[in-house]
């Protein structure tokens, strides 16, 4: 689709009055502090691109990509501009004019094929297991990695030996009477890096009467592609996933990953697929997509026995941007945590401020991502919490790295892990 015809480019650029509200809320601007990092500046650059006043060069891409896609600017924009969509559209337009083999390999070949992605994770696990990664670090081989990757390779948490998909069955029967047929959108991050979250998700859903199906043909949600200038690939992935999931006739499509649920939301699918033939199918799909926290609270209305033998734990909750900003889901994960006996929820300052992980951002902009992370870690440390709960694999990875970086002992978990533990420590059902 032509960049200039994308709805945000066509309809929203002119709405920017450059009031600067976005400057005051942007976590990247707070660190860089020149207009070059201001979201309104990005809007201006997209306008210049649209009008052909600047050429779609890598230099422009570099400036536009200095953005977390956290959507803080968009939700605070008095003129209602989806600044992140404009940015994504422009990145894609520039990329199309400056294709890059490395990116094609990562985003078109590897990240569109779950089997290849899994193989890559396996390789990584092997490297970590055999000490190859440590060897590479010791010998300085990691310095050969391009750009910020050489510094950022430490962020990648310990890759588990088995992915969630290789542990879980496609079809998972409900305990007791079947109440709902749920499609579980198992995202790449949860699948490969946090399989324990996926196991907890399936456990909690089946415990609560859901038949859980994990379509084996499902692919990445496409968010990494949107953020990296690969809109067309994201479009193909969306179309693929919609067709796969719609074929099952699910009551709900649930995901534990904030990024996936935002990528599969009607808002994002409208951005990706607006005006295409599949729009109606997309709407029907998106209407069924729901974040796991919201689902457990609003659809299941989950109850956990007060007699559950859980330990008293101080927990603080970090809002993933793709949940709080992109979908307005803030109270649900907190309410879910509050329903767990023994959990004492302590609010951190600026819980909805980005942690700096933002998918691939921390890998490509390491130094800035660390500055943003350090602010988040200060907020976390002030709470004295033993556990940090959050609902996004990227946030989990980034905050876990923050724990390591600040020599903290706390654990980073998804709320559903705590729910699952609490359910399993309840007295047996009669």
């Amino acid at each position, binding site marked *: 689709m032509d960049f200039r015809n994308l709805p945000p480019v066509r309809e929203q650029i002119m709405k920017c009055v450059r*009031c*600067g509200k976005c400057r005051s809320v942007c976590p990247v601007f707070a660190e860089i502090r*020149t*207009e*070059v990092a201001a979201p309104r500046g990005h809007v201006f650059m997209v306008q*210049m691109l649209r009008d052909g006043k600047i050429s779609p060069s890598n230099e422009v891409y570099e400036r536009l990509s200095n953005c977390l896609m956290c959507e803080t600017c968009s939700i605070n924009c008095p003129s209602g501009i989806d600044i992140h969509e404009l940015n994504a559209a422009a990145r894609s337009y520039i990329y199309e004019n400056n294709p890059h083999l490395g990116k094609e390999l990562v985003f078109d070949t590897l990240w569109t094929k779950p089997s290849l992605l899994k193989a890559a994770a396996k390789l990584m696990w092997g490297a970590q297991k055999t000490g190859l990664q440590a060897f590479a670090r010791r010998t300085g081989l990691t310095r050969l990695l391009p750009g910020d990757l050489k510094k950022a390779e430490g962020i990648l948490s310990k890759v588990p030996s088995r992915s969630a998909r290789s542990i879980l069955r496609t079809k998972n029967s409900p305990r007791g009477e079947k109440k709902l047929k749920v499609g579980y959108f198992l995202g790449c991050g949860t699948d490969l890096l946090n399989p324990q979250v996926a196991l907890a998700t399936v456990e909690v859903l089946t415990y609560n009467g859901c038949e859980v199906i994990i379509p084996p043909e499902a692919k990445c949600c496409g968010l990494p592609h949107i953020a990296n200038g690969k809109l067309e690939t994201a479009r193909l992935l969306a179309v693929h996933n919609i067709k796969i999931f719609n074929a099952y006739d699910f009551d709900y499509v649930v995901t534990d990953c904030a990024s996936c649920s935002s990528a599969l939301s009607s808002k994002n699918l409208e951005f990706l697929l607006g005006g295409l033939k599949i729009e109606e199918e997309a709407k029907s799909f998106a209407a069924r997509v729901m974040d796991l926290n919201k689902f457990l609270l609003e659809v299941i209305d989950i109850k956990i026995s007060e007699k559950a033998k859980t330990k008293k734990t101080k927990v603080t909750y970090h809002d993933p941007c793709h949940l709080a900003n992109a979908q307005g889901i803030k109270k649900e994960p907190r309410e879910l945590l509050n329903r767990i006996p023994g959990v004492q929820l302590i609010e951190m300052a600026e819980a909805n401020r980005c942690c700096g992980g933002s998918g691939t951002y921390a890998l490509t902009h390491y130094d800035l991502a660390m500055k943003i992370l350090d602010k988040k870690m200060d907020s976390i440390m002030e709470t004295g919490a033993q556990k940090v709960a959050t609902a996004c694999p990227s946030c989990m990875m980034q905050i876990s790295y923050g724990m390591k970086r600040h020599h903290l002992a706390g654990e980073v978990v998804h709320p559903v892990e705590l729910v699952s533990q609490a359910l399993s420590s309840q007295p047996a059902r009669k």
Partner: protein
Amino acid sequence: MDRKKVGEELLKRLGREKVLTDELDLMYYSYDSSFLTKLKPVPPLAVVLPKSTEDVQTVMRFAYENGINVIPRGAGTGETGGCVAINDGIVLDLSTFDEIVEIDVSNMQVIVRPGIVHAQLNKELAKYNLFFPPDPGSSQMCTVGGMVANNASGLRAVKYGCTEQYVLGLEVVLPNGDIITTGGLKSKAIKNVSGLNLTKLMVGSEGILGVITKIRLRCWPKPKARGIAMAVFDNLDDAPATVLEVYQAGIMPSGIEILDSSAIEAVNQFKPEIGLPAAEAILLFEVDGNPPSVEYEGNTIKEIASRRARLVEWATDPKRMAELWEGRSVTAAAAARVRKDGSRIFAGEDISVPLSKVADTLRAIRKLGDKYGIKVVNYGHIGDGNVHSAPVINPENPEEVEKVQKLVHEIHLLAIEMGGTTTGEHGVGVVRREYAQLEHGLAHKYMQEIKKVFDPKGIMNPGKLI
């Protein structure tokens, strides 16, 4: 001197950390919030990010020697093109020169660098139960330096006045590199009538006389209580009449805001859940002070407003106050969204007229809107006659742009005709400079003479204010 050479010379003097010369980076400094720069953005020759008075002095000496224009800039939230290099030049981005030098609690003063953001300053002052009262709508992003340069104010100007009332002294780097201190070299006095008042001259001078590098501000104790009254009127004239009666009852609210029917309609269209009553005008009074006085003043306002208003409500409960105030707080955003294929623009947005002429002015603006077929959303600080008109157009439609420029010109002339001014708090910059002669007559000539004293080479933010 060409752009490349200017960049090289500045880099030599200040280093890579403080100078932007890349053509793409410079484009980010080609705009502010004005309609003018939306239509015609102009990038500067270079951008300097000074971190000290000496950095500013270095830039000024270089610029003075070489006859290069210098344009001071804060957060770039102004609506007049004032911080844009419309005639070429070096932009001084002062927003990172933002230290709070000293909070002097015992003298109720604070000394800051120009880049400190207004809300951030008040957050720090709140720790000492103090505040810097002027409160522009852009509090979260605008810099105090920008506020001083534009003599900014806001919702609470009706009681607390404008920035000028709080500026006790300034450090200013002049175009030739001289550094002066106004308000007394060593003075921390609150009252000071020694010498010509250069502080007042600098406040609101929009960067045409020098670069402000340090600001000594007077702070006030933070009021303990607050209340909001909302009054709904079926007759527009009843709104200013009520405001006058409130004043005559010896009450000075901290804010008096008006939404006319166009703003009420826009708010209800944008957020129907707020459910503002359809009316000719809604007034919102804010009262602050000590709890008993707030209660007394609130009840008096309620009694006075009830004589003319269809509906009056007074609240001190924080939740209800927020609900009552919500209509006003979303007005600007509502104006921006009143038309799907349009945008509100910042032009003709800041006229100020005598209180007795507010109703006539609002009616006249509505008529002008009809004449040009342009939707105009009106709201503002009626307590001091400051009307914010928000024309809503498609800024990419040349025909609409042409029409709105005519409309804006007529709004400015209307303000002068009503015995008011083209700008109450946003400033003149480029966009209202054409009215200077009309507004000031012979005084305009003396303003130009004063500029020459400070800036004989005319390099300091030329083409603005006068």
